[in-house]
Protein backbone atom coordinates (compact mmCIF):
# COMPACT_ATOMS: atom_id res chain seq x y z
CA UNK A 1 0.00 0.00 0.00
CA UNK A 2 2.98 2.25 -0.43
CA UNK A 3 1.96 3.67 -3.81
CA UNK A 4 -0.62 6.42 -3.78
CA UNK A 5 -3.79 5.79 -5.74
CA UNK A 6 -4.23 7.60 -9.05
CA UNK A 7 -7.98 7.66 -8.57
CA UNK A 8 -9.53 7.41 -5.16
CA UNK A 9 -13.28 7.13 -4.76
CA UNK A 10 -14.15 7.93 -1.16
CA UNK A 11 -17.57 7.18 0.30
CA UNK A 12 -19.30 8.50 -2.79
CA UNK A 13 -23.11 8.50 -2.87
CA UNK A 14 -25.64 9.69 -5.35
CA UNK A 15 -29.40 9.35 -5.25
CA UNK A 16 -32.11 9.99 -7.81
CA UNK A 17 -35.34 10.95 -6.08
CA UNK A 18 -34.75 8.75 -3.11
CA UNK A 19 -33.37 5.88 -5.15
CA UNK A 20 -29.79 5.24 -4.15
CA UNK A 21 -27.92 4.76 -7.41
CA UNK A 22 -24.48 4.78 -5.81
CA UNK A 23 -24.34 4.19 -2.08
CA UNK A 24 -21.23 4.94 -0.06
CA UNK A 25 -18.81 3.41 -2.54
CA UNK A 26 -15.08 3.55 -1.88
CA UNK A 27 -12.19 2.07 -3.83
CA UNK A 28 -8.83 3.02 -5.25
CA UNK A 29 -7.35 2.67 -8.69
CA UNK A 30 -3.56 2.51 -8.35
CA UNK A 31 -1.46 4.00 -11.15
CA UNK A 32 -0.65 1.60 -13.96
CA UNK A 33 -3.37 -0.87 -13.02
CA UNK A 34 -6.29 -2.11 -15.04
CA UNK A 35 -9.31 -2.28 -12.78
CA UNK A 36 -12.73 -3.66 -13.68
CA UNK A 37 -16.10 -2.64 -12.35
CA UNK A 38 -18.75 -5.30 -12.82
CA UNK A 39 -22.28 -5.93 -11.64
CA UNK A 40 -25.80 -6.55 -12.90
CA UNK A 41 -27.71 -4.00 -14.98
CA UNK A 42 -28.83 -1.06 -12.91
CA UNK A 43 -26.15 -1.64 -10.28
CA UNK A 44 -24.90 1.95 -10.60
CA UNK A 45 -21.76 1.37 -12.65
CA UNK A 46 -22.46 4.01 -15.28
CA UNK A 47 -23.68 6.42 -12.61
CA UNK A 48 -20.34 6.00 -10.88
CA UNK A 49 -18.58 6.72 -14.17
CA UNK A 50 -20.69 9.82 -14.65
CA UNK A 51 -19.74 10.97 -11.16
CA UNK A 52 -16.04 10.51 -11.86
CA UNK A 53 -16.21 12.13 -15.31
CA UNK A 54 -18.13 15.16 -14.10
CA UNK A 55 -21.40 14.48 -15.89
CA UNK A 56 -22.97 14.17 -12.42
CA UNK A 57 -22.05 15.65 -9.05
CA UNK A 58 -21.88 13.37 -5.99
CA UNK A 59 -24.34 14.07 -3.16
CA UNK A 60 -21.64 13.17 -0.68
CA UNK A 61 -18.16 11.77 -0.58
CA UNK A 62 -15.09 12.80 -2.50
CA UNK A 63 -13.33 11.81 -5.70
CA UNK A 64 -9.59 12.40 -5.68
CA UNK A 65 -7.53 12.19 -8.84
CA UNK A 66 -3.74 12.53 -8.82
CA UNK A 67 -3.85 14.05 -5.38
CA UNK A 68 -6.62 16.61 -5.81
CA UNK A 69 -10.35 16.54 -5.46
CA UNK A 70 -12.23 16.57 -8.75
CA UNK A 71 -15.73 16.14 -7.30
CA UNK A 72 -17.99 18.77 -8.86
CA UNK A 73 -15.67 19.47 -11.80
CA UNK A 74 -17.28 20.01 -15.19
CA UNK A 75 -16.61 17.21 -17.70
CA UNK A 76 -14.14 19.36 -19.67
CA UNK A 77 -12.25 20.10 -16.45
CA UNK A 78 -12.13 16.40 -15.62
CA UNK A 79 -10.75 15.78 -19.09
CA UNK A 80 -8.15 18.50 -18.58
CA UNK A 81 -7.19 16.87 -15.28
CA UNK A 82 -6.28 13.74 -17.25
CA UNK A 83 -9.31 11.45 -17.38
CA UNK A 84 -10.68 10.24 -20.70
CA UNK A 85 -13.99 8.46 -21.02
CA UNK A 86 -16.08 6.54 -23.51
CA UNK A 87 -19.86 6.44 -23.57
CA UNK A 88 -21.80 3.22 -23.24
CA UNK A 89 -24.34 4.56 -25.72
CA UNK A 90 -21.80 5.71 -28.26
CA UNK A 91 -21.78 9.39 -29.14
CA UNK A 92 -19.93 9.85 -32.40
CA UNK A 93 -19.88 13.27 -34.08
CA UNK A 94 -22.00 11.71 -36.79
CA UNK A 95 -21.57 14.39 -39.44
CA UNK A 96 -17.79 14.54 -39.12
CA UNK A 97 -15.32 12.10 -40.60
CA UNK A 98 -13.75 9.45 -38.39
CA UNK A 99 -10.48 11.36 -38.55
CA UNK A 100 -12.11 14.64 -37.52
CA UNK A 101 -13.81 12.89 -34.60
CA UNK A 102 -10.43 11.91 -33.20
CA UNK A 103 -8.91 15.23 -34.23
CA UNK A 104 -11.28 17.03 -31.87
CA UNK A 105 -9.84 14.98 -29.00
CA UNK A 106 -6.28 15.55 -30.14
CA UNK A 107 -6.84 19.32 -30.17
CA UNK A 108 -7.01 19.18 -26.41
CA UNK A 109 -3.25 19.51 -26.12
CA UNK A 110 -2.48 21.64 -29.14
CA UNK A 111 -4.10 24.41 -31.15
CA UNK A 112 -2.21 23.31 -34.25
CA UNK A 113 -4.62 21.33 -36.39
CA UNK A 114 -1.91 19.76 -38.54
CA UNK A 115 -0.08 18.16 -35.63
CA UNK A 116 -3.36 17.12 -34.02
CA UNK A 117 -4.28 15.41 -37.29
CA UNK A 118 -1.01 13.47 -37.28
CA UNK A 119 -1.66 12.32 -33.75
CA UNK A 120 -5.23 11.36 -34.59
CA UNK A 121 -4.01 9.26 -37.52
CA UNK A 122 -1.51 7.46 -35.33
CA UNK A 123 -4.23 6.60 -32.84
CA UNK A 124 -6.61 5.43 -35.57
CA UNK A 125 -3.78 3.27 -36.84
CA UNK A 126 -3.42 1.72 -33.43
CA UNK A 127 -7.14 0.89 -33.27
CA UNK A 128 -7.24 -0.45 -36.83
CA UNK A 129 -9.53 2.34 -37.99
CA UNK A 130 -7.07 4.19 -40.23
CA UNK A 131 -8.51 2.78 -43.44
CA UNK A 132 -11.87 4.28 -42.52
CA UNK A 133 -10.61 7.69 -41.52
CA UNK A 134 -12.39 9.68 -44.25
CA UNK A 135 -15.73 7.96 -43.79
CA UNK A 136 -18.41 9.92 -41.91
CA UNK A 137 -18.70 8.54 -38.40
CA UNK A 138 -22.41 7.95 -39.04
CA UNK A 139 -21.46 5.24 -41.55
CA UNK A 140 -19.52 3.12 -39.05
CA UNK A 141 -20.74 -0.21 -37.71
CA UNK A 142 -21.34 -0.49 -33.98
CA UNK A 143 -18.02 -2.25 -33.20
CA UNK A 144 -16.20 0.45 -35.15
CA UNK A 145 -18.11 3.13 -33.30
CA UNK A 146 -16.97 1.61 -30.03
CA UNK A 147 -13.41 1.75 -31.30
CA UNK A 148 -13.93 5.35 -32.33
CA UNK A 149 -15.05 6.15 -28.79
CA UNK A 150 -11.79 4.73 -27.49
CA UNK A 151 -9.70 6.50 -30.14
CA UNK A 152 -11.29 9.85 -29.34
CA UNK A 153 -10.74 9.47 -25.62
CA UNK A 154 -7.13 8.36 -26.14
CA UNK A 155 -6.49 11.43 -28.29
CA UNK A 156 -6.86 13.64 -25.22
CA UNK A 157 -3.85 11.81 -23.73
CA UNK A 158 -5.49 10.73 -20.50
CA UNK A 159 -3.63 9.32 -17.53
CA UNK A 160 -6.75 7.36 -16.66
CA UNK A 161 -9.11 5.90 -19.22
CA UNK A 162 -12.71 5.09 -18.28
CA UNK A 163 -14.16 2.45 -20.59
CA UNK A 164 -17.91 1.93 -20.45
CA UNK A 165 -18.74 -1.42 -22.07
CA UNK A 166 -16.58 -1.02 -25.13
CA UNK A 167 -16.54 -4.79 -25.74
CA UNK A 168 -20.31 -5.17 -25.89
CA UNK A 169 -21.40 -6.35 -29.31
CA UNK A 170 -17.92 -7.36 -30.42
CA UNK A 171 -17.16 -10.83 -31.73
CA UNK A 172 -14.75 -12.91 -29.64
CA UNK A 173 -11.85 -12.27 -32.04
CA UNK A 174 -12.60 -8.56 -31.99
CA UNK A 175 -12.74 -8.66 -28.21
CA UNK A 176 -9.32 -10.27 -28.12
CA UNK A 177 -7.98 -7.59 -30.47
CA UNK A 178 -9.36 -4.86 -28.26
CA UNK A 179 -7.96 -6.53 -25.15
CA UNK A 180 -4.56 -6.57 -26.82
CA UNK A 181 -4.82 -2.86 -27.61
CA UNK A 182 -5.50 -2.03 -23.97
CA UNK A 183 -2.77 -4.34 -22.74
CA UNK A 184 -0.25 -2.63 -24.97
CA UNK A 185 -1.37 0.85 -23.96
CA UNK A 186 -1.10 -0.21 -20.35
CA UNK A 187 2.28 -1.87 -20.76
CA UNK A 188 3.93 0.63 -23.10
CA UNK A 189 2.50 3.91 -21.89
CA UNK A 190 1.58 3.05 -18.36
CA UNK A 191 -2.03 3.99 -19.05
CA UNK A 192 -4.31 3.31 -16.09
CA UNK A 193 -7.69 1.88 -17.02
CA UNK A 194 -10.98 1.56 -15.17
CA UNK A 195 -13.49 -0.43 -17.15
CA UNK A 196 -17.11 -1.36 -16.86
CA UNK A 197 -17.67 -4.61 -18.66
CA UNK A 198 -20.09 -7.50 -18.96
CA UNK A 199 -17.87 -9.53 -21.24
CA UNK A 200 -16.12 -11.66 -18.60
CA UNK A 201 -13.66 -12.94 -21.19
CA UNK A 202 -12.27 -9.41 -21.45
CA UNK A 203 -12.53 -8.69 -17.74
CA UNK A 204 -10.56 -11.80 -16.81
CA UNK A 205 -7.95 -11.17 -19.50
CA UNK A 206 -7.35 -7.57 -18.57
CA UNK A 207 -7.99 -6.69 -15.00
CA UNK A 208 -5.75 -6.86 -12.00
CA UNK A 209 -8.54 -6.09 -9.56
CA UNK A 210 -12.29 -6.32 -9.80
CA UNK A 211 -14.92 -4.39 -7.89
CA UNK A 212 -18.49 -5.61 -7.88
CA UNK A 213 -21.46 -3.28 -7.55
CA UNK A 214 -24.99 -4.38 -6.74
CA UNK A 215 -27.89 -2.02 -5.99
CA UNK A 216 -25.40 0.82 -5.76
CA UNK A 217 -23.27 -0.87 -3.12
CA UNK A 218 -19.84 -2.35 -3.40
CA UNK A 219 -20.31 -6.04 -2.52
CA UNK A 220 -16.90 -7.45 -3.36
CA UNK A 221 -13.40 -6.37 -4.28
CA UNK A 222 -10.23 -8.24 -5.02
CA UNK A 223 -8.23 -10.27 -7.46
CA UNK A 224 -10.24 -11.61 -10.43
CA UNK A 225 -9.89 -15.29 -9.51
CA UNK A 226 -11.13 -14.61 -5.97
CA UNK A 227 -14.01 -12.41 -6.99
CA UNK A 228 -15.44 -14.89 -9.48
CA UNK A 229 -15.54 -17.53 -6.73
CA UNK A 230 -17.16 -15.23 -4.23
CA UNK A 231 -20.54 -16.85 -3.49
CA UNK A 232 -22.23 -13.49 -3.06
CA UNK A 233 -21.06 -12.36 -6.48
CA UNK A 234 -22.08 -15.64 -8.05
CA UNK A 235 -25.52 -15.33 -6.58
CA UNK A 236 -26.32 -11.80 -7.64
CA UNK A 237 -24.43 -11.46 -10.89
CA UNK A 238 -22.36 -14.16 -12.46
CA UNK A 239 -24.77 -16.96 -11.79
CA UNK A 240 -24.31 -20.67 -12.30
CA UNK A 241 -22.54 -20.54 -15.64
CA UNK A 242 -19.39 -19.00 -14.27
CA UNK A 243 -19.18 -21.32 -11.30
CA UNK A 244 -17.64 -23.96 -13.49
Amino acid at each position, binding site marked *: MSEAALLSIRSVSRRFRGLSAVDNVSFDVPPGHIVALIGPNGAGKTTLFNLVSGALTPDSGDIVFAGRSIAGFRP*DQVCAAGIGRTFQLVKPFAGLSVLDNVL*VGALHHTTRVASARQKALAILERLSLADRCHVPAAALTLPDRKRLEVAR*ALATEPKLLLLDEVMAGLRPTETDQMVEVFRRLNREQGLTILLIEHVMRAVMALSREIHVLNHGELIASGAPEDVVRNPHVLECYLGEESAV
Partner: protein
Amino acid sequence: MMLPPSASPGLASALNKRGVALLAVLALVLVALPWFASSYVLSLAIVILYFAYTGQAWNVMMGFCGQLSLGHSLYVGVGGYAAAALFVHFGIGPWLGVWAAMGACMAFGAVIGALAFRFGIGGVYFALLTIAFAEFTRIGFDHWEWLGASGGFFLPVAQREFNDPFNLRGSGRMFYYLLLALDVLAFAFCTWLLRTRIGYYWQAIREDPEAAQALGVNTFRYKMLAVLISSAMTSLAGVFFAFYYNNLFPEQIFNMGRSIEIILGPIIGGLGTLFGPILGAAMLTVLADGITEALRMVGLEIPGVKQVFYGLCLLAVVIYLPQGIWPALAKRLGIGPRDGHRQ
Protein backbone atom coordinates in the same frame (compact mmCIF):
# COMPACT_ATOMS: atom_id res chain seq x y z
CA MET B 1 0.28 1.92 -43.64
CA MET B 2 0.44 5.53 -42.59
CA LEU B 3 -1.90 7.78 -44.45
CA PRO B 4 -0.69 11.20 -45.48
CA PRO B 5 -2.16 14.13 -43.61
CA SER B 6 -4.88 15.76 -45.61
CA ALA B 7 -6.99 18.82 -45.44
CA SER B 8 -10.11 18.60 -43.39
CA PRO B 9 -12.91 16.84 -45.19
CA GLY B 10 -16.61 17.54 -45.06
CA LEU B 11 -17.67 20.93 -43.92
CA ALA B 12 -14.36 22.72 -44.18
CA SER B 13 -13.95 21.34 -47.64
CA ALA B 14 -11.85 23.11 -50.18
CA LEU B 15 -12.63 23.11 -53.85
CA ASN B 16 -10.69 21.05 -56.33
CA LYS B 17 -8.95 22.62 -59.35
CA ARG B 18 -12.08 22.73 -61.44
CA GLY B 19 -13.92 24.40 -58.59
CA VAL B 20 -11.22 27.02 -58.23
CA ALA B 21 -11.41 27.77 -61.95
CA LEU B 22 -15.17 28.23 -61.73
CA LEU B 23 -14.71 30.44 -58.70
CA ALA B 24 -12.21 32.60 -60.58
CA VAL B 25 -14.71 33.10 -63.41
CA LEU B 26 -17.39 33.98 -60.89
CA ALA B 27 -15.08 36.48 -59.20
CA LEU B 28 -14.35 38.12 -62.54
CA VAL B 29 -18.03 38.41 -63.35
CA LEU B 30 -18.78 39.86 -59.92
CA VAL B 31 -16.03 42.47 -60.19
CA ALA B 32 -17.05 43.49 -63.71
CA LEU B 33 -20.81 43.39 -63.09
CA PRO B 34 -21.44 47.07 -62.21
CA TRP B 35 -19.87 48.17 -65.52
CA PHE B 36 -22.36 46.41 -67.75
CA ALA B 37 -25.37 45.71 -65.59
CA SER B 38 -28.50 47.82 -65.52
CA SER B 39 -29.40 49.59 -62.31
CA TYR B 40 -32.12 47.00 -61.77
CA VAL B 41 -29.63 44.13 -62.00
CA LEU B 42 -27.22 46.02 -59.79
CA SER B 43 -29.81 46.52 -57.07
CA LEU B 44 -30.75 42.87 -57.32
CA ALA B 45 -27.08 41.92 -56.99
CA ILE B 46 -26.82 44.10 -53.90
CA VAL B 47 -29.75 42.27 -52.33
CA ILE B 48 -28.10 38.93 -53.12
CA LEU B 49 -24.77 40.00 -51.65
CA TYR B 50 -26.56 41.36 -48.61
CA PHE B 51 -28.33 38.09 -47.88
CA ALA B 52 -25.22 36.09 -48.71
CA TYR B 53 -23.41 38.09 -46.06
CA THR B 54 -26.07 37.90 -43.36
CA GLY B 55 -26.51 34.21 -44.16
CA GLN B 56 -22.81 33.61 -43.72
CA ALA B 57 -22.90 35.42 -40.39
CA TRP B 58 -25.92 33.46 -39.14
CA ASN B 59 -24.38 30.22 -40.38
CA VAL B 60 -21.50 30.67 -37.92
CA MET B 61 -23.91 30.21 -35.04
CA MET B 62 -26.27 27.60 -36.45
CA GLY B 63 -24.37 25.91 -39.26
CA PHE B 64 -21.06 25.64 -37.46
CA CYS B 65 -21.99 25.54 -33.78
CA GLY B 66 -25.60 24.31 -33.89
CA GLN B 67 -27.16 27.22 -32.00
CA LEU B 68 -30.42 28.22 -33.66
CA SER B 69 -31.05 31.96 -33.73
CA LEU B 70 -34.40 33.13 -35.06
CA GLY B 71 -33.76 36.71 -34.05
CA HIS B 72 -30.83 37.84 -36.13
CA SER B 73 -32.73 40.93 -37.24
CA LEU B 74 -31.86 42.14 -33.74
CA TYR B 75 -28.21 42.53 -34.71
CA VAL B 76 -29.03 44.11 -38.07
CA GLY B 77 -31.24 46.63 -36.31
CA VAL B 78 -28.97 47.43 -33.39
CA GLY B 79 -25.95 47.68 -35.68
CA GLY B 80 -27.78 49.93 -38.12
CA TYR B 81 -29.20 52.21 -35.45
CA ALA B 82 -25.89 52.47 -33.59
CA ALA B 83 -23.91 53.63 -36.62
CA ALA B 84 -26.73 55.82 -37.92
CA ALA B 85 -27.23 57.53 -34.55
CA LEU B 86 -23.53 58.34 -34.27
CA PHE B 87 -23.57 59.73 -37.79
CA VAL B 88 -26.70 61.81 -37.51
CA HIS B 89 -26.36 63.05 -33.94
CA PHE B 90 -22.60 63.38 -33.55
CA GLY B 91 -21.24 63.47 -37.09
CA ILE B 92 -19.17 60.36 -36.46
CA GLY B 93 -18.54 58.53 -39.72
CA PRO B 94 -19.53 54.93 -40.35
CA TRP B 95 -15.96 53.63 -40.30
CA LEU B 96 -15.81 54.57 -36.65
CA GLY B 97 -19.48 53.92 -36.06
CA VAL B 98 -19.10 50.35 -37.20
CA TRP B 99 -17.02 49.58 -34.11
CA ALA B 100 -19.74 50.93 -31.89
CA ALA B 101 -22.26 48.87 -33.85
CA MET B 102 -20.19 45.72 -33.37
CA GLY B 103 -19.74 46.45 -29.69
CA ALA B 104 -23.45 47.02 -29.14
CA CYS B 105 -24.41 43.84 -30.99
CA MET B 106 -21.83 41.78 -29.16
CA ALA B 107 -23.20 43.11 -25.87
CA PHE B 108 -26.68 41.91 -26.88
CA GLY B 109 -25.22 38.59 -28.01
CA ALA B 110 -23.30 38.22 -24.76
CA VAL B 111 -26.45 38.75 -22.68
CA ILE B 112 -28.48 36.26 -24.73
CA GLY B 113 -25.67 33.71 -24.74
CA ALA B 114 -24.85 34.05 -21.07
CA LEU B 115 -28.51 33.73 -20.08
CA ALA B 116 -29.12 30.72 -22.29
CA PHE B 117 -25.91 28.77 -21.93
CA ARG B 118 -25.42 29.38 -18.21
CA PHE B 119 -28.87 28.05 -17.47
CA GLY B 120 -28.76 25.25 -19.99
CA ILE B 121 -31.39 26.67 -22.33
CA GLY B 122 -30.92 24.98 -25.67
CA GLY B 123 -32.62 24.05 -28.90
CA VAL B 124 -36.10 25.43 -29.42
CA TYR B 125 -36.01 27.36 -26.14
CA PHE B 126 -32.83 29.10 -27.16
CA ALA B 127 -34.47 30.04 -30.46
CA LEU B 128 -37.45 31.46 -28.55
CA LEU B 129 -35.09 33.53 -26.42
CA THR B 130 -33.51 35.05 -29.53
CA ILE B 131 -36.96 35.94 -30.86
CA ALA B 132 -37.91 37.47 -27.52
CA PHE B 133 -34.83 39.72 -27.52
CA ALA B 134 -35.46 40.88 -31.08
CA GLU B 135 -39.08 41.60 -30.21
CA PHE B 136 -38.58 43.58 -27.04
CA THR B 137 -35.75 45.52 -28.64
CA ARG B 138 -38.14 46.40 -31.46
CA ILE B 139 -40.68 47.62 -28.94
CA GLY B 140 -37.98 49.61 -27.17
CA PHE B 141 -36.89 51.33 -30.39
CA ASP B 142 -40.51 51.97 -31.29
CA HIS B 143 -40.65 54.30 -28.29
CA TRP B 144 -37.18 55.81 -28.40
CA GLU B 145 -37.80 59.38 -29.52
CA TRP B 146 -34.10 60.21 -29.86
CA LEU B 147 -33.96 57.66 -32.67
CA GLY B 148 -37.22 58.68 -34.28
CA ALA B 149 -39.31 56.04 -32.50
CA SER B 150 -41.88 54.32 -34.69
CA GLY B 151 -41.80 57.23 -37.14
CA GLY B 152 -38.44 56.13 -38.42
CA PHE B 153 -34.88 57.40 -38.33
CA PHE B 154 -33.42 59.01 -41.45
CA LEU B 155 -29.97 59.70 -42.77
CA PRO B 156 -29.37 62.73 -44.98
CA VAL B 157 -29.81 61.52 -48.53
CA ALA B 158 -26.62 61.67 -50.55
CA GLN B 159 -25.94 63.20 -53.89
CA ARG B 160 -25.48 60.21 -56.09
CA GLU B 161 -23.05 61.79 -58.60
CA PHE B 162 -20.35 62.09 -56.01
CA ASN B 163 -18.94 59.17 -54.04
CA ASP B 164 -17.78 59.77 -50.50
CA PRO B 165 -16.61 56.39 -49.28
CA PHE B 166 -15.46 57.79 -45.93
CA ASN B 167 -19.02 58.63 -45.04
CA LEU B 168 -20.57 55.87 -47.16
CA ARG B 169 -22.44 58.39 -49.25
CA GLY B 170 -22.53 57.51 -52.90
CA SER B 171 -23.74 55.46 -55.79
CA GLY B 172 -25.10 51.95 -55.93
CA ARG B 173 -21.86 50.91 -57.55
CA MET B 174 -19.88 51.96 -54.51
CA PHE B 175 -22.24 50.07 -52.20
CA TYR B 176 -22.02 47.05 -54.46
CA TYR B 177 -18.24 46.91 -54.18
CA LEU B 178 -18.36 47.54 -50.47
CA LEU B 179 -20.73 44.64 -50.01
CA LEU B 180 -18.73 42.42 -52.34
CA ALA B 181 -15.64 43.10 -50.23
CA LEU B 182 -17.62 42.28 -47.08
CA ASP B 183 -18.78 39.00 -48.62
CA VAL B 184 -15.27 38.02 -49.64
CA LEU B 185 -13.91 38.88 -46.20
CA ALA B 186 -16.68 36.97 -44.45
CA PHE B 187 -16.10 33.96 -46.68
CA ALA B 188 -12.35 34.00 -46.05
CA PHE B 189 -12.89 34.48 -42.33
CA CYS B 190 -15.36 31.58 -42.10
CA THR B 191 -13.07 29.34 -44.17
CA TRP B 192 -10.25 30.11 -41.81
CA LEU B 193 -12.42 29.62 -38.71
CA LEU B 194 -13.49 26.16 -39.82
CA ARG B 195 -9.85 25.11 -40.13
CA THR B 196 -8.87 26.19 -36.66
CA ARG B 197 -9.48 24.50 -33.34
CA ILE B 198 -12.44 26.84 -32.85
CA GLY B 199 -14.12 25.47 -35.97
CA TYR B 200 -13.57 21.86 -34.96
CA TYR B 201 -14.84 22.49 -31.45
CA TRP B 202 -17.94 24.23 -32.83
CA GLN B 203 -18.72 21.29 -35.06
CA ALA B 204 -18.18 18.89 -32.18
CA ILE B 205 -20.64 20.91 -30.07
CA ARG B 206 -23.13 20.91 -32.94
CA GLU B 207 -22.90 17.15 -33.36
CA ASP B 208 -22.90 16.14 -29.69
CA PRO B 209 -22.30 18.65 -26.88
CA GLU B 210 -21.90 15.96 -24.22
CA ALA B 211 -19.23 14.11 -26.16
CA ALA B 212 -17.50 17.40 -26.96
CA GLN B 213 -17.35 18.28 -23.29
CA ALA B 214 -15.89 14.89 -22.42
CA LEU B 215 -13.10 15.65 -24.88
CA GLY B 216 -12.20 18.78 -22.95
CA VAL B 217 -14.24 21.34 -24.86
CA ASN B 218 -15.47 24.17 -22.68
CA THR B 219 -18.85 24.27 -24.38
CA PHE B 220 -19.99 27.45 -22.68
CA ARG B 221 -16.97 29.38 -23.88
CA TYR B 222 -17.14 28.13 -27.46
CA LYS B 223 -20.88 28.68 -27.79
CA MET B 224 -20.41 32.22 -26.49
CA LEU B 225 -17.67 32.75 -29.03
CA ALA B 226 -20.00 31.64 -31.82
CA VAL B 227 -22.70 34.08 -30.70
CA LEU B 228 -20.25 36.95 -30.34
CA ILE B 229 -18.65 36.43 -33.75
CA SER B 230 -22.00 35.95 -35.45
CA SER B 231 -23.53 39.04 -33.86
CA ALA B 232 -20.47 41.18 -34.66
CA MET B 233 -20.56 40.04 -38.28
CA THR B 234 -24.28 40.69 -38.56
CA SER B 235 -23.90 44.19 -37.13
CA LEU B 236 -21.89 45.15 -40.24
CA ALA B 237 -24.87 44.24 -42.37
CA GLY B 238 -26.93 46.59 -40.22
CA VAL B 239 -24.49 49.46 -40.78
CA PHE B 240 -24.60 48.80 -44.50
CA PHE B 241 -28.38 48.68 -44.47
CA ALA B 242 -28.65 52.02 -42.68
CA PHE B 243 -26.28 53.83 -45.04
CA TYR B 244 -27.60 52.23 -48.20
CA TYR B 245 -31.32 52.72 -47.58
CA ASN B 246 -30.93 55.86 -45.45
CA ASN B 247 -33.92 54.98 -43.30
CA LEU B 248 -34.59 52.73 -40.36
CA PHE B 249 -37.97 51.72 -39.02
CA PRO B 250 -38.11 49.48 -35.93
CA GLU B 251 -41.21 47.79 -37.32
CA GLN B 252 -39.27 46.71 -40.39
CA ILE B 253 -35.70 46.20 -39.38
CA PHE B 254 -36.40 44.19 -36.20
CA ASN B 255 -39.21 42.28 -37.88
CA MET B 256 -39.22 38.57 -37.39
CA GLY B 257 -39.76 38.17 -41.12
CA ARG B 258 -36.36 39.75 -41.62
CA SER B 259 -34.80 37.15 -39.34
CA ILE B 260 -36.44 34.41 -41.36
CA GLU B 261 -35.18 35.91 -44.62
CA ILE B 262 -31.67 35.81 -43.21
CA ILE B 263 -31.82 32.11 -42.38
CA LEU B 264 -33.53 30.86 -45.55
CA GLY B 265 -30.44 31.25 -47.73
CA PRO B 266 -28.09 29.11 -45.67
CA ILE B 267 -30.77 26.48 -44.98
CA ILE B 268 -31.65 26.11 -48.64
CA GLY B 269 -28.05 26.45 -49.80
CA GLY B 270 -26.63 24.09 -47.20
CA LEU B 271 -26.31 24.52 -43.45
CA GLY B 272 -22.76 24.63 -42.18
CA THR B 273 -21.26 24.88 -45.66
CA LEU B 274 -19.26 27.86 -46.84
CA PHE B 275 -20.88 28.25 -50.25
CA GLY B 276 -24.40 27.36 -49.12
CA PRO B 277 -25.36 30.81 -47.80
CA ILE B 278 -24.15 32.47 -51.01
CA LEU B 279 -25.87 30.01 -53.31
CA GLY B 280 -29.07 30.10 -51.26
CA ALA B 281 -29.18 33.89 -51.25
CA ALA B 282 -28.64 34.07 -55.02
CA MET B 283 -31.25 31.43 -55.85
CA LEU B 284 -33.93 32.78 -53.54
CA THR B 285 -33.48 36.40 -54.55
CA VAL B 286 -33.36 35.77 -58.29
CA LEU B 287 -36.21 33.29 -58.34
CA ALA B 288 -38.47 35.25 -55.99
CA ASP B 289 -37.90 38.43 -57.94
CA GLY B 290 -38.30 36.60 -61.23
CA ILE B 291 -41.66 35.21 -60.17
CA THR B 292 -42.88 38.59 -58.98
CA GLU B 293 -41.76 40.21 -62.25
CA ALA B 294 -43.25 37.48 -64.41
CA LEU B 295 -46.57 37.75 -62.64
CA ARG B 296 -46.53 41.51 -63.00
CA MET B 297 -45.96 41.16 -66.72
CA VAL B 298 -49.10 39.10 -67.10
CA GLY B 299 -50.90 41.71 -65.06
CA LEU B 300 -51.04 39.94 -61.72
CA GLU B 301 -49.92 41.56 -58.51
CA ILE B 302 -50.38 39.10 -55.72
CA PRO B 303 -49.22 40.27 -52.32
CA GLY B 304 -47.29 37.64 -50.40
CA VAL B 305 -46.34 35.61 -53.47
CA LYS B 306 -42.69 35.91 -52.46
CA GLN B 307 -43.39 34.42 -49.04
CA VAL B 308 -45.36 31.55 -50.54
CA PHE B 309 -42.46 30.94 -52.89
CA TYR B 310 -39.99 30.90 -49.98
CA GLY B 311 -42.20 28.39 -48.23
CA LEU B 312 -42.32 26.12 -51.26
CA CYS B 313 -38.55 26.31 -51.70
CA LEU B 314 -38.01 25.40 -48.09
CA LEU B 315 -40.44 22.51 -48.38
CA ALA B 316 -38.75 21.17 -51.49
CA VAL B 317 -35.28 21.38 -49.99
CA VAL B 318 -36.32 19.78 -46.72
CA ILE B 319 -37.91 16.89 -48.58
CA TYR B 320 -35.47 16.31 -51.43
CA LEU B 321 -32.14 17.78 -50.30
CA PRO B 322 -32.05 17.88 -46.50
CA GLN B 323 -28.34 18.76 -46.63
CA GLY B 324 -29.11 21.77 -48.81
CA ILE B 325 -28.49 22.44 -52.48
CA TRP B 326 -24.77 23.18 -52.36
CA PRO B 327 -23.48 19.71 -51.32
CA ALA B 328 -25.55 18.06 -54.05
CA LEU B 329 -24.60 20.67 -56.63
CA ALA B 330 -20.89 20.48 -55.81
CA LYS B 331 -21.05 16.74 -56.29
CA ARG B 332 -22.96 17.04 -59.55
CA LEU B 333 -20.57 19.63 -60.97
CA GLY B 334 -17.62 17.60 -59.76
CA ILE B 335 -16.11 20.58 -57.96
CA GLY B 336 -16.29 19.34 -54.38
CA PRO B 337 -13.58 17.14 -52.98
CA ARG B 338 -14.23 13.45 -53.39
CA ASP B 339 -14.29 11.14 -50.41
CA GLY B 340 -10.90 9.74 -49.58
CA HIS B 341 -9.06 12.14 -51.88
CA ARG B 342 -9.09 15.39 -50.08
CA GLN B 343 -6.64 18.13 -50.48
